């Protein structure tokens, strides 16, 4: 009882944090039909700066830390990324009116990672003075890439399989020249993920943090601007979520259910595995929260184009709608406070 009321009060307090309140503000002004626009070039540079900063933090941290600590969380990240796709394959895909390729693409997007959601989590951890490994942000690609690769590979195997079985597709096969060769190539998908703007920026930051001396610009520029820029990005996420809601109406309602439930399920799985690493190798509770949040998050920048190219027959209204309109606000607005609260409760014991 006391626990719940504490939890609720904490929740409201966290909604008032700059990060979450700008997200809500964005939804509200979009709902009100505001003409306010954050130009696309600004959104791009904000994403660049946030992920470069996360990369720099990680790179500088890794320089001074025992990398073996990272092995278990990184392996769990990859595991969770792959698992999430198969969960979608065996739950969402089985639901009425949901096409298998659409479900797989959705699973891939929810398995992949949202840089902005992760940035929000890191900021809230700092505001609550909860420690986490400075390299935690570097777990991003370990979950992101396996999820996207798995989704694309499984979807193409499924399509090839279907094509072979269905005789009536035979005549069309020659049109889909690329897919005739039945082996799905993995490296191009990995490469495309790494080349995406978000991951590129993070890996660039990581490399500079590791091999160069970026401390002066880190302290004088990337770090102090972080929270402010994040508040603008949260506003954009909120506006975007609202404006995408319409698209969801055109697809099966099960996507709504999935987008609400999945972030919690994925996050809890990752939280559980994170606790294993906590007891096994001393992975911090803050780090466990980061792991849970990147699992709960769904990719908003790099994932969609990669999936659009990798599974062209999947309907983008389904997976982008599910992720942007519901998945992301749920992950930021509910999952972050939830996993934070969980970690605090466990930490207090």
């Amino acid at each position: 009882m006391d626990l719940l009321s504490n939890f609720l009060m904490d929740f409201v307090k966290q909604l008032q944090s700059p990060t979450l309140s700008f997200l809500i503000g964005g939804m509200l002004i979009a709902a009100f039909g505001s003409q306010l626009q954050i130009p696309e070039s600004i959104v791009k540079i904000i994403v660049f700066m946030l992920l470069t900063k996360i990369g720099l933090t990680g790179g500088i941290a890794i320089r001074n830390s025992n990398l073996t600590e990272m092995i278990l969380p990184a392996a769990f990240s990859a595991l969770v990324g792959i698992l999430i796709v198969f969960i979608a394959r065996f739950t969402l895909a089985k639901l009425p009116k949901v096409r298998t390729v659409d479900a797989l693409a959705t699973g891939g997007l929810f398995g992949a990672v949202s840089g902005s959601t992760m940035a929000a989590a890191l900021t809230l951890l700092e505001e609550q003075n909860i420690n986490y490994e400075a390299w935690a942000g570097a777990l991003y690609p370990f979950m992101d890439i396996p999820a996207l690769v798995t989704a694309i590979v499984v979807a193409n195997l499924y399509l090839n399989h279907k094509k072979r079985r269905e005789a009536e597709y035979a005549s069309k096969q020659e049109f889909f020249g690329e897919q005739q060769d039945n082996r799905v190539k993995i490296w191009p998908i990995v490469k495309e993920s790494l080349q995406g703007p978000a991951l590129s920026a993070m890996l660039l930051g990581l490399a500079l943090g590791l091999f160069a001396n970026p401390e002066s610009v880190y302290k004088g520029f990337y770090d102090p601007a972080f929270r402010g820029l994040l508040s603008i990005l949260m506003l954009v996420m909120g506006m975007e979520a609202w404006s995408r809601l319409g698209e969801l109406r055109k697809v099966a309602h099960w996507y709504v259910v999935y987008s609400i439930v999945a972030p919690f399920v994925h996050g809890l799985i990752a939280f559980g595995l994170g606790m294993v690493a906590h007891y096994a190798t001393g992975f911090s509770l803050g780090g466990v929260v980061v792991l849970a949040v990147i699992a709960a998050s769904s990719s908003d920048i790099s994932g969609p184009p990669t999936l659009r190219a990798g599974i062209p027959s999947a309907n983008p209204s389904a997976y982008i709608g599910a992720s942007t309109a519901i998945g992301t606000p749920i992950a930021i607005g509910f999952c972050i406070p939830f996993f934070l609260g969980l970690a605090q409760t466990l930490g207090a014991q």
Partner: protein
Amino acid sequence: MAKPAKKLVIVTEKILLKKIAQIVEDSGATGYTVVETGGKGSRNIRSSGQPSVSDTTVNIKFEVLTPDRVMAEKIADKVAINFFHDYAGIIYISDAEVLYAHSFCGPEGC
């Protein structure tokens, strides 16, 4: 002095930019002009998840002048067969006359 030509127009999703440019180049056309556009069609799909609360332009429009209808149709067929099953798009042609061009008009001039 002017040389009759066909103007082929392809409007489709931005994600296909490089692939269509490749098809046009392979076809033997001397060049192309491309612009980002907004638009609405039966699919009304945006091909990228880029946060775009702003009025992002998400289609691309290729304009390709070809010396004859055959080349234009060859490009159109290839684009449509490869992509229009899964991506939004429209292709049309119209008549034009090229007045000046560096490479279009061949040795005998426009």
